[in-house]
């Protein structure tokens, strides 16, 4: 009785697959971050690149140690840890000490992803969990901004622009009296000063490394949408919700409440809409849910920015909406055919 290993494979239908794959989607989002990283480096100097790099190293190192995989790339191969690190780096203020960036990356992966069982299982956006941790732990460094060293066409040597605080020893701080800048939202909230919309549009303002250049973010978002790498309803819903709520307030009292364009172009709402809100894992899976999520997010952003204690609220709002995403998913199940 001669027998050989079977030739035929039996699998279940379908025997055809559409082309796209999860790692491919990750790659496209990673590609889209490259111009944003470059712009951040250009605007805030070499120090900003160091911050992004360190945050990424923190994230990747945490993934490596905690995933328990010692052979091959393991779960690093899907690129999600890399992406988390880069996104976290882009949301940090430029002069933050590097050890904090590293810590943030590690916390983002540990608390935001690994404890939930890895990619696809987490409820909260890992990068934002890392950032929220840093914000709560180090409120002062996390709200100290530096002014951009370059504008679009002129620069005062960005490659040497590194804030001395960046190199603080782990657990320590460097006490300096460096000139700090305020974010456009901070200026508006605490000093009642507006910012020129064109500077907001081109990114010539203070703020987190990746959030300042509106035009670039819009382009990246459009590119990702054209590659079908993101669910377009989410950013559209979030941005239009911010627009609607802030215009309503602006119409009620235009002296007290800033206009909708200012609200859209300033702060992290564009960055959040393109890179955070579109994270499929932590946002509703249903299409109705996407609209609900976006609307809720816009409402919270406007509420906290205008009536809350903090000038910026995108991070908290996204985390809060992440928290209610399971409930949204449940409430917005599509109607089954024939019911």
């Amino acid at each position, binding site marked *: 009785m001669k027998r050989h290993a079977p030739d035929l494979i039996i699998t279940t239908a379908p025997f055809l697959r559409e082309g796209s794959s999860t790692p491919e989607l990750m790659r496209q989002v990673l590609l889209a971050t490259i111009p944003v990283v470059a712009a951040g480096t250009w605007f805030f100097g070499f120090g900003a690149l160091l911050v992004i790099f360190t945050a990424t190293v923190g994230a990747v190192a945490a993934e490596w140690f905690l995933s328990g995989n010692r052979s091959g790339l393991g779960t690093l191969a899907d690129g999600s840890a890399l992406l988390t690190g880069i996104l976290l780096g882009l949301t940090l203020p430029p002069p933050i000490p590097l050890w904090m960036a590293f810590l943030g990356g590690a916390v983002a992966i540990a608390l935001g992803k690994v404890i*939930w*069982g890895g990619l696809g299982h987490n409820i909260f956006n890992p990068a934002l969990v890392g950032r929220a941790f840093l914000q709560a732990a180090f409120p002062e460094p996390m709200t100290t901004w530096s002014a951009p060293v370059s504008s679009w066409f002129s620069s005062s040597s960005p490659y040497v622009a590194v804030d001395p605080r960046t190199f603080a020893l782990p657990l320590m701080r460097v006490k300096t009296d460096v000139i700090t800048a305020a974010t456009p939202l901070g200026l508006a909230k605490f000093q009642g000063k507006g910012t020129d919309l064109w500077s907001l549009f081109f990114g010539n303002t203070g703020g987190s490394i990746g959030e300042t250049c509106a035009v670039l973010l819009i382009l990246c978002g459009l590119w990702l949408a054209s590659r079908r790498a993101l669910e377009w309803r989410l950013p559209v819903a979030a941005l239009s919700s911010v627009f609607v709520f802030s215009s309503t307030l602006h119409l009620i009292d235009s002296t007290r409440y800033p206009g909708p364009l200012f609200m859209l172009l300033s702060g992290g709402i564009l960055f959040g809409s393109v890179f955070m809100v579109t994270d499929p894992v932590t946002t509703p899976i249903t299409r109705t849910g996407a609209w609900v999520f976006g609307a809720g997010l816009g409402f919270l952003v406007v509420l906290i920015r205008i009536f*809350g204690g903090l000038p910026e609220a995108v991070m*908290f709002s996204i985390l*809060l909406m992440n*928290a209610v995403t399971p409930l949204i998913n*449940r409430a917005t199940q599509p109607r089954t055919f024939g019911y």
Partner: protein
Amino acid sequence: MNDLLWIFVSAAIINNFTLTYFLGLCPFFGVSNKIDTALRMAAANIFVLVITSFSTWVLNTFVLFRAEYLRLIAFIVAIACTVQFVEMVIKKTSPALFKALGIYLPLITTNCAMLALALFQTTRGYGLLQGQAYALGAGVGLGLALLIMAGIRQENELVTIPKLVRGAAMNFFIAGILSMAFMGFAGLFSSH
């Protein structure tokens, strides 16, 4: 009116009883495994909080002004007895309602949120209306935290949480992240 709004919002989200005051943690972790249960617990909580707020306000205003040192003991006895009485009444009159809410009532007796509410409203000198706003806010806050927690935990049941953090540790981590997210509400309406 503004005052009432701030009391309500403060108790519900800014100083959420569960996530920033650590009150009522045992039921928060205990009955947040199903959304359905969480909803009922939240309803029972609000009900008892409002009753507590009212009865302790009456007690404090009309009986205890002579002997403030009896506050704690009087409050806790009042809460325990009221809850037990309500429980018995529900059990007898409406078995269906008891099934839905009643089994959570004994849990609420030893829920520190009730006593804390009574004590806080007294030390802050809240009047009847303010007390009710405070109780409602605290109840809504507890319910909100409970519901969100239940949503997340029920979602987690569909995936495999690593063995080392499964159970209590995971719940604390979730609560920690939620607590961080709720920090975003700090200062809401306080400057307006």
